[in-house]
């Protein structure tokens, strides 16, 4: 009997292979994504090991200092004198600032097998106080070979040094602009003899092991010396492995996102099987009527799930594998070399087994529910849509418990926030809050569908009967709608949370940047004030706008000394984001001051108080505090005063000591050159660079997060497509009826498309409602000091985008429904 029940079910499945694909589509995508990640990891790791090296191929031995002490000149001589060693190059780098940008200057011989750079213009430096710049640095600073540059920061407390730029090179790069010079030149500039590492080349045919032993005997005779001696080969592998290890962390993070996507796939699969089994209720009931046991039905349905999991899991793995194996070829077209992933059999099998387990797990609940069908059900001609109403008591209780659990954890988090901690506990609590809240959403989802539908469906009703039918179609099957919408909600919760978090970070950095870099360009007088013609010159030049001169003066408040600035806060648009912690920025004017928070604390002042500022020379000014900022004042100073008040305070001449300006037109490098020309002699800073860097970092963070969350959204969209497809299949008669009653094909398509869009819309609304408060709570709980924001535009964009994408997912089922012949309505089964 069991076998025959199994056979009835499985033959039903095999007769319609399209359905396997449909019920298992989410599992297929999940398997594809998981195995795709495995392959991507393989490709990246192998490519990295094959190609990455910071050590040139020619280097045969590497001596590196292991303590903080560099390799001394004496040790260098010992190394040079060791038989077999032909060439050696010191490896070191120094961080300096040049013309307002940071420059990372590296040692490199410039030519020969040890060099990592190629010359593109001029000559490679070989004399005292000569360096080369990489192309990016040369462009940014606006220097050609032969120009000079003042570099600051070579040595602690030393004066800036002027160097000649002899050439421009291409070389390995990272985020920073780089300079290059021979080791000895760099050594002299930095004023610290010795290198942390020396690369050696040995004569051809030299026995490396013997040379290493000899080097060791020479260098390590003194027990206080900490040096490592390794072959170039070992170093290259270690460097590549270190690089790979960093990537492993990235992949661990990606793995977490993939994990959430797998959860989404399991949810979708559960919902799909529930629908499919509901459609087969009559048949299952018939089997019960003629004597099939519940257990037999459950077994048969679980077996069906296993088959679906096996087929779709294997398909997903194979598609991913095809993509992975094709990757090197595709990369080859664009001239890049990457190493293929090979065929990782173990992980492939694991993914397929995982797919089977997840699918069987997903089938479990629907299978028990379906097998519980009353035999009588076979005799009733029940419509699927009519047969689900309300929420079971178990669900209700579970939902309430989970809500309570989330509430309790919030309480706990709030309590632990008062105590000191490393934040790990809060993170754990937060994870619990999120999980409980989302669990409650799954349990109580069917109850939420109607109210949300009433709100978001209202505009659809304007579309006439098609829209209205779509809304009532979804309202009529709230459990189904909830099942698919909560998966969309899972994706949107995380999306909305990420967006809120990142937009908070953006506001935070904007404020910080407004303080640090209120304009694109800055000019600061070196010795004596700026010439009177500088400001007029800048104002006359169309390339600049918001030209804002300023003077600064020292003052002491309570205990510490601070700097006041007479900058016009209304002069620079970037300063609009400044926020007052107390008082109002609009109240600023003659006789009033804006104070940084630390200064206010130092003076013990609140907004509205009157304070007395004293200059080192003894001048005083009494001012009312107009506003206290949430952080520092512009340019990281202590107070903003009007020019007249600053003059009263004393300590500043009549001429400006600095000027800020924004670039109105032209490229940044052009503007910078003009700025430099007008302000010859003054220190120039490209403040915009710093701002861009911070902005770009946050932006790339946002895009990375959106891309990874896209996986979950993708699976949710697959869920919407499948659910809509199955709904259309079971409502063939209804589609036919509507066609018979005179609904046009287009309207039928519109109706089904609207249904799919509504699943997405409801999910997006629920997700936003859950994600935004969770993100706010997380920001507070983790004490990140990031302000709460409500990025309405972006959130709205997400909601609209999801509705649109899910409408697209409904296109195939919609076309199918529109093709139904009206005669279908008349046929009686």
């Amino acid at each position, binding site marked *: 009997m069991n076998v025959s029940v199994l056979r009835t079910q499985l033959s039903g499945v095999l007769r319609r292979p399209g359905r396997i694909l449909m019920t298992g589509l989410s599992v297929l995508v999940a398997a594809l994504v998981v195995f795709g990640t495995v392959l991507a990891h393989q490709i990246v790791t192998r490519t990295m090991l094959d190609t990455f090296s910071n050590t040139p191929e020619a280097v045969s031995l590497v001596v590196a200092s292991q303590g903080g002490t560099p390799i001394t000149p004496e040790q260098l001589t010992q190394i040079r004198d060791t038989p077999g060693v032909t060439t050696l190059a010191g490896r070191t780098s120094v961080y300096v600032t040049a013309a307002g940008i940071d420059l990372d200057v590296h040692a490199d011989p410039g030519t020969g097998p040890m060099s990592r750079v190629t010359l593109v213009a001029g000559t490679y430096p070989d004399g005292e106080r000569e360096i080369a710049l990489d192309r990016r640095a040369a462009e940014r600073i606006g220097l050609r070979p032969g120009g000079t540059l003042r570099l600051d920061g070579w040595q602690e407390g030393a004066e800036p040094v002027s160097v000649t730029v002899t050439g421009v090179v291409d070389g390995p790069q990272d985020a920073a602009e780089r300079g290059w010079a021979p080791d000895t030149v760099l050594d002299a500039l930095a004023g610290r003899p010795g290198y942390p590492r020396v690369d050696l080349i040995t004569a051809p045919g030299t026995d490396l092991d013997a040379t290493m032993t000899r080097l060791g005997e020479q260098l390590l005779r003194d027990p206080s010396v900490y040096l490592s001696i390794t072959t170039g080969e070992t170093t290259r592998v270690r460097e590549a492995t270190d690089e790979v290890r960093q990537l492993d962390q990235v992949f661990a993070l990606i793995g977490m996102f993939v994990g959430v996507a797998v959860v989404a796939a399991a949810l979708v699969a559960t919902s799909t099987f529930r629908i499919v089994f509901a459609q087969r209720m009559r048949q299952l009931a018939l089997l019960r009527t003629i004597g099939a046991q519940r257990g037999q039905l459950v077994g048969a349905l679980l077996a069906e799930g296993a088959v679906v999991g096996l087929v779709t899991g294997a398909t997903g793995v194979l598609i991913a594998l095809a993509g992975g194996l094709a990757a090197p070829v595709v990369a080859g077209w664009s001239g890049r070399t990457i190493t293929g992933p090979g065929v990782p059999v173990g992980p492939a099998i694991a993914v397929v087994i995982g797919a089977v387990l997840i699918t069987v797990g997903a089938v479990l609940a629907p299978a028990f529910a379906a097998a519980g069908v009353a035999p009588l059900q076979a005799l009733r*001609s029940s*419509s699927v*849509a*009519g047969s689900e109403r309300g929420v079971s008591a178990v669900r209700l209780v579970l939902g309430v418990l989970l809500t309570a659990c989330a509430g309790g954890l919030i309480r706990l988090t709030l309590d632990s926030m008062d105590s000191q901690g490393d934040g790990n506990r809060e993170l754990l609590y937060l994870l619990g809050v999120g999980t409980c809240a989302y669990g409650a959403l799954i349990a109580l989802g069917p109850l939420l569908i109607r109210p949300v539908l009433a709100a978001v469906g209202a505009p659809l009703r304007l579309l*006439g*009967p*098609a829209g*209205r*039918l779509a809304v*009532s*179609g979804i*309202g*009529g099957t709230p459990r189904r709608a909830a099942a698919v919408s909560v998966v969309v909600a899972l994706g949107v919760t995380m999306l909305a949370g990420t967006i809120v978090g990142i937009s908070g970070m953006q506001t935070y950095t904007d404020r910080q940047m407004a303080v640090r870099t209120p304009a694109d360009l800055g000019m600061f007088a070196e010795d004596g004030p700026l010439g009177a013609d500088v400001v007029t010159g800048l104002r006359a030049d169309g390339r600049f706008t918001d030209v804002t001169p300023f003077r600064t003066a020292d003052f002491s408040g309570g205990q510490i000394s601070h700097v006041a600035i007479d900058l016009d806060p209304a002069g620079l648009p970037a300063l609009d984001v400044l926020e007052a912690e107390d008082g109002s920025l609009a109240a600023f004017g003659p006789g009033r001051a804006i104070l940084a928070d630390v200064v206010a604390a130092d003076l013990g002042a609140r907004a509205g108080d009157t304070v007395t500022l004293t200059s080192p020379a003894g001048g005083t000014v009494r001012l009312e505090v107009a506003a206290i900022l949430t952080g520092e004042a512009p340019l990281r100073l202590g107070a903003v005063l009007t020019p007249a008040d600053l003059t009263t305070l004393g300590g500043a001449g009549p001429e400006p000591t600095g000027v800020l300006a924004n670039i109105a037109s032209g490229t940044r490098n052009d503007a910078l050159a003009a700025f430099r020309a007008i302000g010859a002699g003054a220190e120039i800073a490209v403040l915009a660079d710093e701002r861009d860097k911070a902005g770009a970092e946050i932006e790339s963070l946002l895009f990375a997060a959106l891309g990874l969350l896209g996986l979950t959204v993708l699976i949710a969209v697959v869920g919407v497509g499948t659910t809509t497809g199955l709904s259309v299949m079971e409502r063939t*008669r*209804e589609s036919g*009826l*509507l*066609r*018979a*009653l*005179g*609904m*046009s*094909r287009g*309207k039928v398509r519109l109706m089904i498309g609207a249904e799919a869009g509504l699943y997405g819309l409801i999910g997006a609304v629920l997700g936003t409602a859950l994600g935004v408060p969770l993100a706010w709570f997380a920001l507070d709980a983790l004490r990140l000091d990031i302000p709460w924001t409500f990025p309405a535009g972006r959130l709205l964009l997400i909601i609209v985008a999801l509705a649109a994408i899910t409408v697209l997912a409904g296109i195939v089922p919609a076309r199918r429904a529109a093709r139904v*012949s*009206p*005669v279908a*309505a*008349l046929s*009686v089964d």
Partner: protein
Amino acid sequence: MSPDGFAVTATDLVKVYGTGDSAVRALDGVTVGFRRGRFTAIMGPSGSGKSTLMHCLAGLDAVTSGRITIGGTDLTRLRDRQLTALRRDRVGFVFQAFNLLPQLTARQNITLPSEMAGRRVDADHLAHIVDVLGIGDRLGHRPAELSGGQQQRVALARALATRPEVIFADEPTGNLDSRSGAEVLGLLRDCVRGLGQTVVMVTHDPSAAAYADRALVLADGRIVHDLDGPTRATVTEALGLAGVR
């Protein structure tokens, strides 16, 4: 309004299902006209082509050859879009399986075709129909909360609401007990007498056919009898001649 007083006409209708060896000639040269304001029953043995004839007449299915007019419009020349509009505006349907939309209330089901046409339902007309059909206190309910007879009356009200040229009914009493069936048939006849509706009904049941003004008997895709003022007895006899016990 066509001058000859026919709501629906069919000329030399041929309908062939499938091709080659498996081809079935479900209609084999049917020519018939249905006068306005008359109640016609179509009868015949199973497989004789009753449903096929009705589907073709109603513009639900395409004919292989022949011509059909509803209110003077030639259906066989219309494209899907126009055909859909024609069904919506000038044809009403009553099905054996009621075919109401489960998620809509009775009233919403009744007004659905008019709304799809973008028209308001004439409130007086609706009130009149609802009154005649006796479903006034059921309008707020969904189909699942109605008895079979009530559902069929709602379906009838939906068919009547657009004042169609003709109502087609396929076994409208097939799913009802005899009392509810008799009520629905009585109502159909009342619509013809009282509202001047044209009704074409497919049925197996000779006593149902007795409610009609005229009965056609089909056999093998042809009309073999055409009875005026049929009674149970005359219909049974005609069916017997056509090969039904």
